[in-house]
């Protein structure tokens, strides 16, 4: 097992190297003068020369790539043009929102998608099955941005005066603020070192922060603001998970050992949930992991629509504002998260399914 994990880790090194090459190329293919693009149009000749020298832009491409690799491994992702701050700080500040959003969407997708898939497999060709599959087909076909806008219209305008009213934008309502736990508990934090940055990161996970500080008003507000964006973001994964669960369940239910279990006289519940479901869920695990990419891509759209300052929206704004260090760094970070998630899925899959040969 450990050997297999190690081998998978080593196998992902070329991919990580390739990702670095791509993001490096992304940063170098900035149209126009790189100095003016990064320091702004008004940078003087002298500052530009200084910049080119310190950044190693006068050296050969392989050397530049080596410098880039060195910086990245040190956690130095450059400075944002617009914010004049290290990109790493912006990631620590804004990544938590995207994580909250993606996790909420993923949990929703699994909690709804898996049971729907099971029910439609058990009641094959029943109205529930037909309805679920219709829903799944529509779910993968409806654009996230369209669904998001429609949900916002429905819950913020049409249901404005009902208890179902939900806020269409922002992370918290006016007047509610999230005080990070380290401030509340009087811990010193000036943003230096890994430990303090981790605190900032965790403090920006509003739901986590609200739970550990016991601030229920904040928790309620944060969750209410998260509902619409996460529902919009969850439909595509939900539909895919429901379909996958259904077809996997149908396949398993047709196998001999299920017939044996039935012949043994086990009741329906035992056969379905103990014998069939366990095996049927294996392929679903893979699909769930793969959905992370769709979630991170969809986050750009969802965050833009719902006015959330997460990684996706920051990336979008950086592209329109030509803030290349952010574009480069965010693309890199997202790709690494995606690769890591796939790796974890692969390893856990091998762990869950003893039939997979580890060599």
């Amino acid at each position: 097992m450990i050997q297999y994990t190690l081998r998978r880790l080593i196998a992902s090194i070329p991919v990580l190297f390739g990702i670095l090459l791509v993001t490096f190329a992304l940063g170098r293919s900035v149209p126009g003068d790189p100095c003016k693009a990064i320091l702004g149009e008004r940078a003087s000749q002298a500052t530009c020369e200084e910049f080119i020298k310190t950044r190693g832009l006068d050296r050969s491409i392989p050397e530049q790539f080596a410098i880039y690799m060195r910086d990245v491994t040190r956690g130095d992702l450059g400075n944002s043009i617009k914010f004049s701050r290290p990109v790493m700080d912006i990631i620590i500040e804004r990544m938590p929102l995207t994580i909250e959003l993606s996790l909420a969407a993923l949990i929703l997708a699994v909690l709804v998608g898996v049971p729907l898939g099971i029910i439609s497999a058990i009641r094959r060709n029943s109205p529930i099955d037909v309805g679920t599959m219709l829903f799944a087909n529509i779910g993968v076909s409806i654009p996230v941005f369209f669904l998001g806008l429609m949900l916002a219209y429905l819950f913020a305008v049409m249901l404005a005066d009902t208890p179902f009213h939900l806020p269409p934008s922002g992370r918290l309502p006016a007047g509610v603020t999230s005080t990070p736990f380290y401030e509340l508990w009087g811990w010193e934090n000036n943003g230096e070192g890994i430990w303090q940055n981790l605190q900032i990161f965790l403090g920006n996970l509003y739901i986590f922060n609200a739970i550990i500080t016991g601030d229920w008003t904040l928790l309620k507000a944060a969750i209410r603001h998260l509902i619409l964006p996460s529902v919009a973001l969850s439909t595509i994964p939900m539909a895919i998970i429901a379909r996958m669960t259904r077809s996997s369940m149908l396949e398993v239910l047709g196998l001999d050992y299920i017939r044996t279990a039935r012949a043994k006289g086990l009741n329906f519940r035992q056969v379905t949930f103990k014998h069939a479901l366990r095996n049927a869920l294996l392929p679903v695990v893979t699909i769930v992991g793969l959905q992370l990419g769709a979630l991170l891509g969809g986050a750009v759209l969802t965050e833009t629509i719902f006015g959330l300052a997460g990684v996706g929206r920051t990336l979008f704004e950086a592209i329109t504002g030509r803030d290349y260090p952010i574009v480069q760094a965010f693309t890199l970070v997202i790709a690494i998260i995606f690769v890591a998630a796939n790796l974890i899925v692969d390893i856990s899959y091998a762990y869950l399914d003893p039939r997979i040969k580890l060599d």
Partner: protein
Amino acid sequence: MSTATVEEPTVAKIGSNVKAESLWAVTMRRFFKQRNAIVGTIILLILVLTAIFAPYIAPYDPIQVLIGVEDVSRREKPCVHLLGCDPEKSQHLMGIDGNVRDQFSRIVYGSRYSLLIGFTTVSFAIIIGTILGAIAGYAGGITEDVIMRMMDVLLAFPSLLLAIAIVAVLGPGLQNTLLAVGIVTIPQYARIVRSSVLSVKEQEYVEASRALGASPFHILRKRILPNSLTPLIVAATLGIATAILDAAALSFLGFGAQPPAPEWGAMLGTERGQIFSAPHLVFFPGIAISLTVLAFNLLGDGLRDALDPRLKGK
């Protein structure tokens, strides 16, 4: 005794007058047995006809500003005579957009963009993907490693984000969007072709071809690639759906088709701020995209089921 009487006529039937059906005939028959596939085909047919006959269907020029031409105002709600709109007023089935243009006409012309985007990106990706996959599978060794690792790297990015990043470098515009969406889907096709090349390249009939002195290109084209056709067709149909969605997302964000082009994603994107005051400007383009994508998804599913040999006879 009883079994014999049952089997006899069956044997006789096969022996006498049943014509062998071609693969395509079988596929078509099974395809049209599925309700979903029929629905998908009908929607697609309507879409194609709309795109072809757009000038005859659309009552207005899609980029014509109606100020001074008609008595309409910005973002006016739909006016349909049958639904009780004042017959004195001119009819605008889907209302007026933010630049005082007839939205119905724009939606009609938008079908051309959607189909164009779907077919060009997927054709591009299939051609490049097939070439890369075939080379990788056939050559093996380092060539294969390099090509497939490149594909892994492309797959390591969420497709929409990679497409956005590519457009960020190339600059916004419809052409660059097509290119970006095409590039991010290449790996999928390369993998399909490579795996089917691998699965058949050691087969005896391929070896026989080789022994007869056929060139590698001939073997690839005549002996190996036909095997990838089925999975490729399915992947392509579903790929068109994804491509249209991704391209619409790019246009929605302002990176794709530029105004005044009547592209659905872009139409939705420009008016997204008006969702609370003029929801019809978001609703109709959104429905148009959803229906188109749905059609290709249904079609792809239907084709997969029809082409799957394991389901034969069911």
